[in-house]
C-alpha cells in the first residue's frame, strides 16, 4: 500500500512535466505577448524601444528553450515567479483564489453527494413510479439548466424573499474571507454558488447512482440477501449501496477536478474572485507565468483527485489490490 502511494505520487512528476511542455509552447503559439498588449492594446502609437525594454525585463526575448528551462528550474525549486501582468508573486495571487475555488468545489461536491445518492437510490428502488419520474425530471432539469442561470435565479430569489420577509433585500457578501476567520460570513457567501453548481453536478451522479443501483439490485447476491430474510433497508444499505457507489465515485472525482478550474461563468454570476476568473484573465492578458501556474495546479489537482478516487475504490471493493 505504501509502495502504491509512493508510486502514484512519483507518477505526478511526468504528468506535470507533460502538462508543462504543452502549456508552455501552446501559450507562445498565440501571436502577441503581455508587453505588446499593454502598449499597443489601446491602438495608440507606442515606442519600439519601450516595448523591447518591457520584453527584456520579463525575459521574453531570450531563446525559447532557455525560457522553458528557467520555467522548469523555477518549479523544481518551488520558485513560481511573478505574474507578468500585475508583477505580484504568483503564489500570492493564487492562494486566496485557490482557497475560494477549492471550498466551492468541496461544498458543491458535498451538495451533489447529498442530493445524488439518496435520490438515485430511491429512484431505483421505486423504479417506474411517480417518485422515480419525479427524480428523473429533477435531474434532467439539472443537466438542462445552465448553472449560471440557476445562479441568477438563486440571487433573484434571495433578493425577492428577503425583501418580502424582512423588508430589506439581502445579497450574499462579495469580499472573500476564509472559512476559519469568519465561518458564518464565509458560508453565507459560498453556499449559493456551491448549491448552483452542486445541483447540476448532482444530476449526472443521480442518474449514475440510479442505474448502478438498478443493476446491483438484479445481482445474485441481492437475491441471496433477500433469501436470508433480511430487511429491505438493510439489503439496500449494506448489500447494494456499497456495490453501486463504484461508478458514482468516478463521476464525482472527475467533476470535482473539473470544478477547480472550470467555474468561469458561475464565478462571474456570483461575483467570486476564483481560479476560473483568474484563468480567463491570465490567458487574455498573455500572462504566461500565471497561465502556466494555473494549468500546473489544475493538473496536480486532477492527479491527486484520481488518486483519492483509486483509494476509495479499494475501500469500497476489496477485490481491488494496489500494486
Amino acid at each position, binding site marked *: 500500500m505504501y509502495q502504491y502511494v509512493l508510486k502514484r505520487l512519483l507518477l505526478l512528476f511526468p504528468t506535470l512535466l507533460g502538462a508543462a511542455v504543452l502549456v508552455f509552447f501552446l501559450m507562445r503559439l498565440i501571436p502577441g505577448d503581455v508587453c505588446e498588449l499593454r502598449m499597443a492594446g489601446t491602438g495608440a502609437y507606442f515606442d519600439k524601444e519601450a516595448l523591447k525594454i518591457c520584453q527584456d525585463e520579463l525575459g521574453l526575448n531570450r531563446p525559447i528553450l532557455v525560457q522553458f528551462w528557467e520555467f522548469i528550474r523555477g518549479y523544481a525549486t518551488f520558485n513560481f515567479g511573478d505574474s507578468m501582468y500585475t508583477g505580484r508573486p504568483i503564489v500570492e495571487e493564487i492562494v486566496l483564489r485557490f482557497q475560494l475555488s477549492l471550498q466551492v468545489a468541496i461544498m458543491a461536491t458535498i451538495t451533489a453527494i447529498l442530493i445524488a445518492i439518496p435520490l438515485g437510490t430511491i429512484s431505483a428502488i421505486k423504479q417506474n413510479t411517480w417518485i422515480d419520474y419525479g427524480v428523473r425530471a429533477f435531474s434532467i432539469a439539472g443537466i438542462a439548466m445552465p448553472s449560471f442561470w440557476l445562479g441568477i435565479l438563486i440571487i433573484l430569489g434571495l433578493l425577492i424573499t428577503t425583501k418580502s420577509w424582512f423588508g430589506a433585500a439581502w445579497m450574499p457578501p462579495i469580499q472573500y474571507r476564509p472559512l476559519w476567520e469568519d465561518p458564518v460570513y464565509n458560508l453565507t457567501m459560498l453556499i449559493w454558488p456551491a448549491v448552483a453548481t452542486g445541483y447540476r453536478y448532482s444530476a449526472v451522479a443521480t442518474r449514475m447512482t440510479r442505474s448502478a443501483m438498478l443493476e446491483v439490485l*438484479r*445481482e*445474485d*447476491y441481492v*437475491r*441471496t*440477501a*433477500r*433469501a*436470508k*430474510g*433480511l*430487511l429491505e433497508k*438493510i439489503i439496500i444499505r*449494506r*448489500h447494494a449501496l*456499497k*456495490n453501486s457507489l463504484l461508478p458514482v465515485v468516478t463521476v464525482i472525482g472527475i467533476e470535482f477536478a473539473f470544478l477547480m478550474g472550470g467555474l468561469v461563468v458561475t464565478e462571474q454570476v456570483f461575483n467570486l474572485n476564483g481560479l476560473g476568473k483568474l484563468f480567463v484573465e491570465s490567458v487574455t492578458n498573455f500572462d504566461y507565468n500565471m497561465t502556466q501556474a494555473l494549468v500546473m495546479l489544475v493538473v496536480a489537482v486532477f492527479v491527486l483527485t484520481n488518486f483519492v478516487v483509486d483509494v476509495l475504490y479499494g475501500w*469500497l*471493493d*476489496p*477485490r481491488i489490490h494496489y500494486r
Partner: protein
Amino acid sequence: MATLLEVDNLQTQFLTSAGIVKAVDGISYDVEEGETVAIVGESGCGKSVGALSIMRLIPWPPGRIIGGAVRFQGKDLVKLSDAEMRHVRGKEIGMVFQEPMTSLNPVLTIGLQITETVRHHLGVTQEEADKRAIELLGLVGISEPERRLKQYPHHLSGGMRQRVMIALALSCEPKLIIADEPTTALDVTIQAQILELMKGLTRRLGVALIVITHNLGVVARYADRVNVMYAGKIVERGRAHDIYHRPSHPYTLALLKSVPRMDQPRKAKLDPVEGQPPDLTRLDEGCSFRPRCRFKVEHCEREFPPLNSVAPGHVAACFETARVVRLEKVAS
C-alpha cells in the same frame, strides 16, 4: 413422517413483450420432514421459478404467482405478509443457489454475511454469532474457519463458496433447504463432494432438502423421491429407484438415455433429448411433449394428460404409459 411442505397447484407467470410465460403451470408436490426430494428437468422448464416461488422471491415485474398454495408447516406462504415471509426466509427455509461465484456479496466478508443472518433471526450478540459462524464453517468442511470469517468471497474457490452458501442456508437451523442446481457451476470432481456434504448434513440434522438438477444421475444417488418437470408441469413422480428403473413417461425415458448409467454397460450410447423444449408463451391444450415424443397418438393433441398412477407412489402424465413401460422391459 409428517408432511413439511405441500405445493398445491402453484402457478407462476411472467409478463413479457412476447406474451405470458407460464413458467410454472400448476405444479403440485410435497416434501416430508427430513426427506430429500429432487426436481429434475431440462434447462428452462421452470425449476428455478418453482423454487423461487416457494420463497416468494419472484421479482415483480415481470413475474407473479397467480394461483395455488404453498403450505409450509400448515401455513400458506403465498398468503403471508412480507414481514411474516421474512421470518420464513433464511430462518425456516434456507436456500442454496446455482452460481457460487455471484451469490455472495463481493464487498462484504464471509463472516458478516453469515453473522448478519444469524443475528437477524436469532437475535444473538455479535460474539455469539461469530461463534456460530465458526461452528458452521467447520461443519461444512472449511479449514481455519476463524481466519475465513475475515476473508472476502474472492479469496475462496467456487466449491468453497458453495460450502459457505450451505453454511448460510443451515445457519438458523431451518426445516427445509432448497438447493437450486447447487453443483451445476462446479468442477465434476467437486460436484460429488458438495452433494455428499449436503446429503450428509441434511440427514444428520434432520433437514428436508429439495434439490433441483437437470442430471438424473444425481437424483438416483441422493434423492428419496423425484419430480420430473417439463414445460412448467410435473410429468412424472415417484421414488428415485422407481423413476430410475421404471420410467413411465417418454420424457423421463429420454432424460435417462442422456446420462451415463452405472447399472448399464458403458457402450450404451447417450442420446441427448431430441428437439427443443416448447415456447412457454405458446402452449396449447394438448400434451406439451408431443413434438418430441416417439409415442404420441392422436389423442395427445386434444388434451393434456393428467398424472395417473402407474404403481403405488408412482404417477406419470402420459396417455401411453403402458407402451413406454413395455418398451423399457423389452429393451432391458
